Structures are given as structure tokens and as C-alpha cells.
């Protein structure tokens, strides 16, 4: 039995009770009886389960497992256009395209996600300031609706449904296949610079200065540092560059084989880790493989088990540019005071490139992403306090990483929801949808 959890393992799902259908190319059809019955269980696609919270969960309904939708369909090596089924992962794609000096136009921090998931969450990466979100590169997709219709959606065909599906959290139907454009690269290496910054102002300055000449920028911050050290961290920026050697793919060797007891991850151990990580000698300039640059955590399989049985929650928000200093400062202050932060804290400036997605998360401003081990009420309260700040400054929170935002907060973050609802497939739903919309 496959374990149909989300990446944060919170909220917990009873896998034995979860009903699952396997989807195969071309031959899948929705069960006849479910179409007419209003109380029929709902559907939701599930691929890699890398969403952190409940956007990939459908406990009252049926999950459509897309692991068998793993075929490439067409690849134009000259123009850099790939068509593949929705269950194909970014890892599969990189293995195919890297030898021809193509790259993903946009990639998040893990390659173990499906293309369908990348569209449903309209993922972003370290090049958001230059490239926007993944959805911008989708040229066409086939959507299978629960009434049996197979609709080709593109920026020029079924446009509204296309825009709703980009970042549509899988609610507009089952994405069957996708066609998207790739990005030409000079080689499989990255020239990377790592710079230390001592506070938030230094970060913003570094980021603004790097935006023009560096394709990829991101910062790690020490979220437990306080006082004069508040907002200290390491700024990383990189560009693609040539390499003499062919890249050899290796499967990850390290794995966390079981859940680590929760007490090992406390403010003392995390503080010690962050201190060492910040002060470690860093090479300012390095030429490294693309894999450790984009996917450092992929080197450790099942790293989510470090957070123990109770799992963890992630909080990722974006704060509009004009409020960034004040808001991020306020957030880091309360996180540091709570002592609950962890070692995976990321800060990045989003650019102003708009996505076609009706419900897309990224918008211009500063995004902050942090992991919190699940300590129950204490953690939920802290995240509510962070939401209060995001709401006050008119920011937003990323559904792909959320497991707890309130319907009120969601309504303010996503004013397009009412418009979006028109495009939801009547027989598709998710735990996230029911939680934030109340139906």
C-alpha cells in the first residue's frame, strides 16, 4: 500500500481508509454512477505528494493516482518544446533534456514533483524575478473533466479554463498531458556566489543589486537570531555556465529511514545548527553542478522524517515591496521570540512578472518560507500571528504549503476565488478547498 500523505505529514491521513483510483493514459473514465449523484464522492489528482499541507488530500473522496501517467509524448530538440503526461516528474525531464543543453524554465527546490503538480500549484523558483512562474511556459494542456470531456486548453483555446487551471490546485479537472517550452543553457554547471549578510537591510540591498545580472537568487536566513543579528544569513546567486563534462545522474544515497524522535529538534539544537551554518567558512565563488544548486535537499531522501511522527508545517508568505522591511522584521521578531523556527528558512525577492494563473500565489514583493515542527496549539498560534502580519500588509500565503489558514485569511489573500469557482469541476474537491471555502 502506498502511503497517501502530504509532505508535511500534517494533517495526518489514514491511508487505509483513503479510496484511490489509478489513472492510465487514454483509457481512464470516471465511474458512470458518480456523475448524476450530488452526494457522489469527489476526485482529486495525486502524484508525488510533495505539497506540504492538504491541497493534495481528499479524505472524504477519491484520489486519482497519476503515477502511470509517466510517458513522454513529443520532444522537439531544436525548438525546446516538450509534451508529456502529467505524472512525469521534473527529475525524469532533466534526465532527458540536460544532455541537449535544455533546462526547466522554472523549477522549485525539489525535482521530485510531477508536471501536473507544478501547474496545479503554479510553482516558482529562484529565477522568479527573471522568469515568473512555471505556468507562463505552458503552451497547451489536456484537461479531463468528470463529465468525460477532454478539453485542450491553451492561452488561445478555452483560455478562461486554462488560466483557472494554472495554479488551480487541481480543482478544474484532471490534467492529462502538458506541453511546455524549455530553456536553453550553455551547460550543466552553475557559477555561484555566496555572500554573508548581517541584517535585513543588507539582504534587500544585495537582492536589489543582484536582480539584473543574476538569473537565480535566494537567501537562507537564521530565523532564531535576534537583536543586532536579526535577519542575518547567506545570500546565494547563480547563473548557468558551461561544463566540459557530461552530467551523470545519481540517485540519492542518503535517506532518513524512519521518523526522528521529535525532542531532538528543539530550539537549542536548531540554534546551534543555524549558528554553525551561518559562521561556517563559505567559498564566495564556486562552479558547481546544477543538482546541488537547485536541489540541495533532494540529496537526503525522506528529509521530512527529521520532523518526527507529528510532522511539520511550512509557512510561506509574500509581502508587497513597499512594506517588506517592516513586515519581515516583525515576522522574524516574533519567530525568534517564540523559539520555534527551524533550519530551513528562505528569503527571496519576487519580480513583477505576472502569471496567467487566476489563483497563482507569487506576486511582486518579498517571500519568506519557514518550516515549523508541529508542536500543536503553540505552532498554530504562531502561524496565526504571522497571518495577522501578512493580512495587515496585504500579502498572501502559498496554498501548496499551507495546512491551517483560516477561510477569512484565504478570502483576503485570494480575491479571485469567486471568479475561479466558476471553473471548478463539479466533481473535484480537496481537503484544502473544503477547509478554506467551507464547501
Amino acid at each position, binding site marked *: *500500500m*502506498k502511503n497517501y500523505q502530504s509532505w508535511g505529514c500534517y494533517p495526518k491521513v489514514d491511508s487505509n481508509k483513503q479510496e484511490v483510483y489509478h489513472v492510465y*493514459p487514454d*483509457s481512464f473514465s470516471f465511474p458512470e454512477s458518480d456523475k448524476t449523484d450530488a452526494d457522489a464522492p469527489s476526485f482529486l489528482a495525486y502524484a508525488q505528494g510533495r505539497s506540504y499541507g492538504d491541497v493534495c488530500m481528499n479524505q472524504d473522496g477519491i484520489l486519482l493516482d497519476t503515477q502511470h501517467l509517466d*510517458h*513522454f*509524448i513529443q520532444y522537439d530538440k531544436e525548438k525546446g518544446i516538450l509534451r508529456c503526461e502529467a505524472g512525469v516528474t521534473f527529475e525524469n525531464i532533466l534526465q*532527458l533534456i540536460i544532455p541537449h543543453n535544455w533546462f526547466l524554465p522554472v523549477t522549485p527546490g525539489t525535482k521530485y514533483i510531477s508536471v501536473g503538480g507544478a501547474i496545479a500549484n503554479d510553482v516558482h523558483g529562484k529565477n522568479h524575478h527573471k522568469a515568473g512562474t512555471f505556468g507562463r511556459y505552458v503552451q497547451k494542456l489536456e484537461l479531463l473533466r468528470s463529465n468525460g470531456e477532454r478539453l485542450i486548453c491553451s492561452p488561445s483555446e478555452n483560455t478562461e479554463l486554462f488560466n483557472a487551471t494554472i495554479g488551480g490546485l487541481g480543482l478544474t479537472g484532471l490534467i492529462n498531458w502538458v506541453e511546455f517550452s524549455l530553456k536553453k543553457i550553455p551547460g550543466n554547471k552553475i557559477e555561484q556566489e555566496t555572500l554573508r549578510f548581517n541584517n535585513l537591510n543588507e539582504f534587500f540591498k544585495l537582492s536589489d543589486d543582484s536582480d539584473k545580472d543574476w538569473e537565480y537568487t535566494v537567501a537562507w536566513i537564521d530565523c532564531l537570531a535576534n537583536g543586532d543579528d536579526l535577519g542575518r544569513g547567506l545570500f546565494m546567486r547563480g547563473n548557468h555556465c558551461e561544463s566540459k563534462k557530461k552530467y551523470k545522474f545519481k540517485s540519492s544515497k542518503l535517506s532518513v529511514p524512519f521518523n526522528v524522535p521529535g525532542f531532538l529538534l528543539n530550539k537549542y539544537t536548531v540554534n546551534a545548527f543555524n549558528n554553525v551554518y551561518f559562521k561556517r567558512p563559505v567559498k564566495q565563488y564556486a562552479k558547481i553542478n546544477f543538482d546541488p544548486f537547485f536541489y540541495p535537499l533532494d540529496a537526503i531522501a525522506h528529509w521530512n522524517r527529521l520532523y518526527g511522527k507529528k510532522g511539520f508545517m511550512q509557512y510561506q508568505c509574500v509581502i508587497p515591496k513597499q512594506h517588506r522591511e517592516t513586515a519581515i522584521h516583525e515576522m522574524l521578531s516574533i519567530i525568534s521570540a517564540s523559539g520555534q523556527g527551524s533550519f530551513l528558512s528562505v528569503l527571496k525577492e519576487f519580480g513583477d512578472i505576472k502569471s496567467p494563473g487566476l489563483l497563482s500565489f507569487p506576486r511582486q514583493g518579498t517571500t519568506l518560507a519557514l518550516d515549523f515542527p508541529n508542536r500543536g496549539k503553540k505552532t498554530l498560534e504562531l502561524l496565526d500571528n504571522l497571518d495577522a502580519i501578512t493580512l495587515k500588509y496585504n500579502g498572501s500565503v502559498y496554498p501548496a504549503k499551507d495546512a491551517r489558514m483560516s477561510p477569512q485569511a484565504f478570502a483576503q489573500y485570494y480575491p479571485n476565488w469567486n471568479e475561479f469557482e466558476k471553473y471548478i469541476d463539479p466533481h473535484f474537491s480537496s481537503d484544502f478547498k473544503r477547509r478554506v471555502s467551507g464547501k
Partner: protein
Amino acid sequence: MSNILILGATSAIAKQTTRLFAADEHNLYLVARNEEKLSSIKQDMLVRGATDVHYESLDIADDKQHEDLIQRATEAMGSIDTVLIAYGTLGDQKQCEENYKNTLDELQTNCLSVISLLTLLANQLEQQKSGTIAVISSPSGDRGRQSNYIYGTAKGALTIFLQGLRNRLAKSKVHVVTIKPGFVDTPMTRDFKKGLLWVGPEVISEGIYKAIKKKKETVYLPFFWRYIMLIIKLIPEKLFKHLSL
């Protein structure tokens, strides 16, 4: 570039193995029952680099079709250099115990039909004095156990047939590989409770690909099954018959 015949091409293990061969730019001839699946696999293999891909849908367990099948595959590709036999069923042991008819079906699919194919293929490759025959057998054939000795009987017989064939074809420079995968997480084993010893089909396919390239004789996949089975084979029968394995 060589010509590869894959029998049971839609199985999870065969599909992953074929992908590795596709990237090396070979000609492929794929056979399985489900035509729709074969057509998506064909596209996938072409994208991954296969030079040419043919397929046909057929019930391979039906041995009356074998001669024509091998003729068609040979004509389509020019010759057969490598063959991978990867089809099979994990029948219901209980049903087999109740009815010999079920046992016969199991033996036909997992053993006799394979021997029929191997008889034809062996003669062809022997004449051409080159080639590789790779067949998926099973560690279950190493010792009979109450939980699945029908499947074990089929695979055990197959393993011995392959041993003999290897011995016979050695002088014709035709290589025979016996593949024994342990617990693999595939649609065939969907309903099993998965533990530590389970691996994904991509782990097995990597092993098959290497075994064919490096001309191994018998491979257990992953390697540790060789030792697990060694221990299982060493237990004295007097004790073994009381174990519930």
C-alpha cells in the same frame, strides 16, 4: 545499435528497462496485450532516443501464436539480437490448491509459454551465433513454500530450463541471463503490505540493464536476495516444513 524484442512490454519492470535501452538508440519490438498502453510506450521510447519502435498487441501466453510473432519481429527489425521476457502473473495460490485447472493456467503463463518462446528463439539465435536471452524468473523458484509454491514451481522449472539452455548455447556465443527480482512495488503487487525489503521497478530495471550489458548469468535483484535465499535454502527440510513461509 541492436534489435531488441520485449515480451510483456507494458509491465512496470519491462517498461523501465526498455527506457534504459531506448536511451542507447536501439530498435525495439514491443509485445503485450493492451494496445493503448503500447501506443503510449512507443511514443515515450521514441522521445527517449529509440531509433525505431514497433509494437503488437497479443496474448503471449497463447503458444499457438509464437512462431508468427517471432517471424514478424524478425522481419520488422531485420534480426533479433536481444530478447527480454518479462510477462507473468502472480496467480492466486488458494484457487490453485482448490482447482488443478487454475494451476495449469499458472504453469502455462509463467512457464510453458515461456519455454515455447525460448525453444523458437534459442534455435534462431543459435543459428545466428550471437545474441542475448534475458528472462525474468523469481527467487520463489529456489525453494517451495506453502504461500506460493505454484508460482514457485513455474519459476523453478523455468530457472532450470534456462540453466540447460545457457549450457547448450554457450558454444554458439548466445548468452542467457536469469533474473530473479525480490519484492517489487508494481501494479502486480499492489495489494501487498510493503516493508523494508521492497524496492521500486526502476531499481530492478537498472539491475537488468546492467546484467544484460555485463553478460551476467544469474542475478538476484537487489543483490541481497541472493543471501536471503541462501539462508532459506540452507534450512533443513525437517524444520522447514513447520515454518509458515
